[in-house]
């Protein structure tokens, strides 16, 4: 695998993570934990995989992405801004009354957002709809979506998965951001959805389990998904909530809490240090 490309993707992800911290800090609200855990997946999707045109966000033949765990909008906005869909400096307006960067993604106001999400369990259904439309129109675009592992407690997720498998939507690839934590604690203690692999398989998905922070594994899993015919693919990505900022990692408390000035400075310093080390690697 191209080492230089992976280094670039790591850099893209670290910048997304810095932007997550800055957005949530400037808004004094938002969801850093789950945003950080899916940053590597978003980096691969937007900077290595998806066919999108930032200057033409409504391009009919583009690949689609639906952030079903819509509260992780800071990660998506970070990726979209870095990709050139809108100016990066606008990220500082996140969640403010005169901004187009809504707390949860709004397709009507944010260029590059393919579906308005935020109410858990609904985005995956919309992604299924986009994949169905692609089949109807015989288009070759692909549809990607990220589910939270707490989100799959919503019954609608399973309705959507059943539908995707029934209609053999091999143009749909779903990631489960399996960071193990939700607002009230461990998903296995709040209301366990485990064993997720068995359940997704029973619902008709091809399941690929990976380390969601390992670039070679993310890229290979997507390649395998693209080769899979006749069924949709679920990539179970083992991730760390708060990944990239040591004091946020694996702490449910960082699900929906904004850092204070001191915490923001420490987080940015740690991510800058990561970026500096990456350059001399």
């Amino acid at each position: 695998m191209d080492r230089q490309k992976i280094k670039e993707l790591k850099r893209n992800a670290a910048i997304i993570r810095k932007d997550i911290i800055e957005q949530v800090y400037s808004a004094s609200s938002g969801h850093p934990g789950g945003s950080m855990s899916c940053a590597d997946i978003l980096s691969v999707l937007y900077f290595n995989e998806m066919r999108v045109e930032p200057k033409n966000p409504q391009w009919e033949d583009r690949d689609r992405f639906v952030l079903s765990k819509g509260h992780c909008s800071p990660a998506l906005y970070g990726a979209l801004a870095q990709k050139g869909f809108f100016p990066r400096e606008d990220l500082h307006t996140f969640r403010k009354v005169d901004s187009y960067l809504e707390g949860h993604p709004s397709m009507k106001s944010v260029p590059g957002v393919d579906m308005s999400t935020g109410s858990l369990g609904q985005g995956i259904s919309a992604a299924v709809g986009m994949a169905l439309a692609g089949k109807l129109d015989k288009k070759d675009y692909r549809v990607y979506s990220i589910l939270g592992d707490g989100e799959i407690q919503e019954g609608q997720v399973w309705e959507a998965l059943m539908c995707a498998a029934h209609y053999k939507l091999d143009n749909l690839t779903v990631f489960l951001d399996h960071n193990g934590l939700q607002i009230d604690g461990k998903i296995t203690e709040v209301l366990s959805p485990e064993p997720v692999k068995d359940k997704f398989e029973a619902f008709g998905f091809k399941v690929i389990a990976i380390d969601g922070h390992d670039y070679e594994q993310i890229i290979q899993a997507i390649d395998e998904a693209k080769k899979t015919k006749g069924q949709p693919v679920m990539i179970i990505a083992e991730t760390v909530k708060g990944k990239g900022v040591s004091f946020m990692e694996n702490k449910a408390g960082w699900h929906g809490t904004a850092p204070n000035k001191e915490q923001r400075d420490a987080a940015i310093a740690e991510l800058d240090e990561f970026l500096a080390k990456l350059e001399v690697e």
Partner: protein
Amino acid sequence: MEIKKIATREAYGSALQEFGSNPNIVVLDADLSKSTKTDLFKNKYPERFINMGIAEGNMMATAAGIATCNKTVFASTFAMFASGRAFEQVRNSICYPALNVKIGATHAGLTVGEDGASHQTIEDIALMRALPNMTVISPADAVETRAAVKAAIETKGPFYLRLGRLACPVIFDENNYKFELGKGIEIASGNDVTIISTGYMVHLSLEASKLLESEGIKARVINIHTIKPIDRDIIIKAAKETGAILTVEEHSIIGGLGSAVAEVVVENCPVAMKRIGVNDKFGKSGKPDALLEMYGLTKEAIVAGAKELLGFKKEVMVLK
């Protein structure tokens, strides 16, 4: 002359079949295509019909996803499940992004009949008209239903089409009927009292006006097919000219047509008003006509309501 009777759900299915040649139209159903009559579309255009199974929440959000790909999506199930079970999917995935999804909600109201309260939604108008970006249409007969489906196809954005199970007299002449979105239609003239009605109750309101006329009371009858956006002008004019407004609907008196009319009347031209509808009760099993009788949704009840209202009108005049 025998009056032709066609259920509005039947007219809906026929209209989908008639206008379905447009390749951008996709129809979804939740295992009820024989009842909602989307099977008429399915039989003609099977490649653009998708059965979503008994999963209405997923159906609505999936319809939204398909609509993002420049398609006009009809999503059908019983009105109870379309507006109730899937309320939040309709709100967040369809109305918030203003997507081009047309909800064909059949089996609305008490005239579902024998299935009983669990399947008789009498609160769907209230729920759907509260949603920003939503257009709510409640056609009175088959001719109006066909026109409403056509308007829904020609107009971008979310629509809720409230349709009935029961065969319903065809009151409009398809050769000269004109449907204008957001415009009420005066179907009987008079200045003593105005009866504003929607859906299945429109033909009963017309019959009631004839009974009233035989007693020397001239009632104006207005058919409101578009409940949202409502025709403010026709309501304000009626309030000013007749000084008394009776609303009639096969829906709860809370939040439906009566409430929508009262909002316009109170803010613009307060006059004597009375609402006929389901009086904050659940439905029950029974023959549709027996239920309408039991819940006071008959032409006789409309006549009695109109007379009671004329009494209020006199009191209001005295006070003025």
